[in-house]
């Protein structure tokens, strides 16, 4: 949908409006990995490998081939932002939910926030703590 109009008073001030419906190709997830024990650390590569193995376990080779991007990862907090093509969101989410261990140690992925807009993950009102 495009609406536009020109105005003579301001030369550059033509008006344009575009509505992009379902235009995002990707979905973004903010997740963290929780361990039952304390003091376990993973580097970014191991973290991504864990996600791929989770996908492979639930969805087989097709799942493992899903192009998941680890956009950011913090080793200290095990907090990460993932990007996945929109058609693979349910596959990724289910694989993350059903993963229960890393090297025989119990763990779980917690999904904190999801959005089709990466910018939405920059601000989460549910994490707003007022003191």
């Amino acid at each position, binding site marked *: 949908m495009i609406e536009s109009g020109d105005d003579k008073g301001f030369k550059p*001030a033509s008006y344009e409006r575009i509505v992009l419906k379902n235009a995002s190709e990707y979905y973004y997830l903010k997740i963290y990995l929780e361990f039952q024990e304390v003091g376990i650390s993973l580097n970014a590569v191991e973290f991504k490998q864990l996600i791929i193995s989770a996908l492979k376990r639930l969805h087989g080779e097709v799942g493992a081939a899903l192009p998941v991007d680890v956009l950011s990862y913090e080793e200290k907090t095990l907090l990460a932002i993932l990007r996945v093509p929109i058609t693979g969101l349910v596959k990724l989410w289910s694989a993350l939910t059903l993963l229960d261990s890393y090297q025989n140690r119990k763990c779980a992925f917690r999904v904190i926030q999801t959005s089709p807009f990466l910018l939405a993950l920059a601000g989460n*009102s549910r994490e707003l703590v007022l003191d």
Partner: protein
Amino acid sequence: MFVPLRWLRETPRHLLVCERSHVRHERSRHASHVRDHAFNCRVSFLIPDCGIVPEAFKSAVAGLGEYYLVKNLSLHELVTEEFINTFVKKGSCYALTYNTRIDQDNTAALLPTGKLILSVDKDTYEELGLQGHPSRYSGKKPMRYIITLDLSESTFGPDSKKHKRIIWALKEKKPLEFDFLLAWHHTGSEESILMSYFSKNQIQALQPKVTFSTLRNVQCPVLDNNKLKGEPEAACSAQEFFEWLGAILSCVGLENTPSSFLSTYSCPQPSTFVEQVLLCTITGFILPEKIICLLEQICCYFEEPKLAHWISLVVHGFADSPVSWRECEHGFLKGGENLYNLVIFRSLDYWLQMAVGAHDDCP
């Protein structure tokens, strides 16, 4: 045709609305879009090629004003005649329930227009006995209802039947208690009136949290203010820019190759390297009036020649507010996102990008 498990592949609808016009244009709607988005939890602005915080911004940020957190406030206190006459009818009064979730709890919001909007579950709705309508997003068997009370209505007098019934419903029939975020914008008298008015309750005055930071050597997309859709090899589109902005605010690395293992995200092309970018983030309960003041400062910034081609102002709304823009119903579903970004160009042309999730009207 019935496609089994179609929902497994399809994600909920989401909208990104992009508008382009000029800030000083008399029919420009950017200010009304800002004003209509009542509940904002985070405001960030990004100034490329800027190392030191300009004084005007410092004072604008310092003048954001305080807001209040009132604990365990009975909802009927917001519909008393005294409250309406002191706050609702004089200036703009904003209130939003704090730590309530729109997809599971009862929530309430008071808009500056004097409308009190309650989003309640089915049981509460039936117990309350106030007139409302089913939520637009609760399917065939409504489990959530929306009640809108217009407090500034002339028929809402202290002796009217309607007022008596509402007070009875909220005080005796089904007393509702919430923690409220409150703010009052008005001209004239002192601000601490809210504090003294609710002195019997546990009230706390809060200041928005402000952080300034400088990002070094940032890859910035090239924009052309006349081309929202961008142009191959000349300018990036509004949608690409929106994603890039998310990457910058979430500290995502931009320099990945298509073959790298971790991530393949890279800055949209064409791009330029900017030595330093100033990023300011404000969190709290931020009123639209204050955002308009910030916007004015941004426009004034470009009155003198500057290196920056544009400044971006990002505003995140509350995911659990019962409204997003105006009185449009808002729901959570998977993310509850309702946010907008204003890009002000050197020529004072602007781009406004508004993003909403599945449970929202087109802004």
